[in-house]
């Protein structure tokens, strides 16, 4: 393998000629090693078991590119994996599209590619196809990434808003606000030192475990757990719906659920898992942690009978050790709304956030 001769991206790296070839063979392929990608075909051929597939896409423009707990590369894999995971599917393959600004350092690009590779490996997905373009200086901010993903529907799993009913419980798999506050702590003009890390992580292993053990897919005793699960007890309607609370945080996700189902939601502030360091930073900056983005969390709406099992499965997994049942779906009084009982026993409404609190966090 010839050593790369340049330390920065040139426009010619996107020109389709020798430099493009260099970029692919000396930077992209070595990082993203897999047989399908190595063919460098125009399209990747996938052999899928399921007739039902989920397909999603997301673009990543986070600033700064590198932050405690991750970088734009890791985010671009985990974000798309999570969109597939919360839909009730097992992620199979990702595409990767890079738009790189002229002058971007190869050292940074290689780090990002290594993160993408590691995240893909950890989440059992392959980057099977991709594209890269370069644009002139100023036309993009260093690097923008798009990933699209395909996931195979888990048999017997059918999630959707229409499944949600009054009485269903709401579970979150861990602490909220970590990602957004981490990003802002590393931003120019606000910078403060913090031990906080983004919670950026792929959730597919946990969500698959949850779905397989509570939704009647593999109604066998989960070897990890000592207790029988809902599924093994014949209760088959476990998880009804899942979503990952990214931009707009938990507040946005709960409002989306409330609006789509036309049902109300009640949550308890005392049950929300919040890291005190995140809370202190949010207090200093005047933010409401409910509105801050998360990148390694999902909200699950589950049947009341399966709630304890779901919680158990989460807390036994590294990505769910702080999981909590935070509230439930309720009948409406007037209009559907999301209401929170505060720590002092007061009640307040949780509105859809305005959405401008933190720019470019994902």
């Amino acid at each position: 393998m010839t050593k790369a001769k340049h330390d920065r991206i040139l426009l010619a790296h996107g020109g389709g000629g020798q430099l493009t070839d260099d970029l692919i063979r000396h930077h992209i392929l070595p990082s993203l090693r897999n047989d399908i990608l190595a063919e460098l075909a125009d399209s990747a051929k996938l052999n899928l078991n399921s007739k039902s597939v989920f397909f999603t896409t997301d673009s990543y423009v986070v600033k700064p590119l590198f932050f405690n707990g991750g970088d734009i590369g890791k985010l671009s894999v985990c974000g798309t994996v999570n969109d597939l995971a919360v839909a009730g599917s097992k992620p199979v393959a990702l595409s990767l599209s890079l738009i790189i600004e002229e002058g971007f350092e190869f050292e940074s690009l290689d780090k990002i590619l290594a993160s993408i590779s590691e995240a893909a490996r950890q989440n059992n997905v392959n980057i099977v196809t991709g594209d890269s373009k370069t644009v002139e200086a100023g036309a993009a901010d260093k690097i923008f990434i798009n990933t699209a993903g395909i996931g195979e529907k888990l048999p017997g799993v059918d999630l959707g808003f229409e499944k949600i009913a009054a009485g269903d419980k709401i579970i979150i798999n861990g602490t909220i606000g970590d990602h957004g506050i981490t990003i802002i702590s590393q931003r120019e003009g606000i910078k403060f030192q913090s031990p906080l890390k983004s919670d950026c992580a792929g959730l597919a292993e946990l969500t698959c475990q949850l779905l397989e053990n509570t939704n009647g897919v593999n109604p066998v005793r989960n070897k990890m757990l000592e207790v029988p699960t809902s599924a093994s007890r014949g209760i088959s309607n476990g998880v009804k719906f899942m979503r990952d609370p990214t931009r707009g945080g938990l507040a946005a996700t709960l409002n989306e659920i409330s609006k789509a189902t036309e049902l109300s939601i009640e949550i308890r502030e005392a049950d929300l898992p919040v890291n005190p360091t995140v809370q202190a930073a949010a207090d200093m900056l005047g933010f409401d942690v409910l509105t801050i983005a998360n990148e390694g969390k999902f909200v699950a709406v589950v049947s009341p009978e399966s709630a304890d099992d779901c919680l158990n499965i989460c807390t036994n997994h590294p990505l769910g050790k702080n999981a909590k049942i935070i509230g439930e779906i309720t009948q409406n009084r007037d209009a559907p709304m999301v209401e929170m009982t505060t720590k002092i026993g007061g009640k307040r409404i949780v509105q859809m956030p305005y959405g401008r609190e933190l720019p470019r966090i994902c």
Partner: protein
Amino acid sequence: MCLAIPARIVELEKDNAVVDAMGNRWRAKTTLLPEAKLGDLVLIHAGFAISLVDEEEAKETWQLLAEIADFDETSDKISG
């Protein structure tokens, strides 16, 4: 507008301080609080220490300080 939180002075040189609030570290000035010393708990507003905070009263006043004992995670293992 009057956001201010209690934080501990962990570094102090003349009136340039570094304060720690639950692990977050900010730069702050003690120009308005010349009597502040290393180790003091102070109230920080807009980058300035504006008052000393009584330690005992602090636990009665700030929920976060009272609750910290309940949170299982230590500051080494932050996210989750």
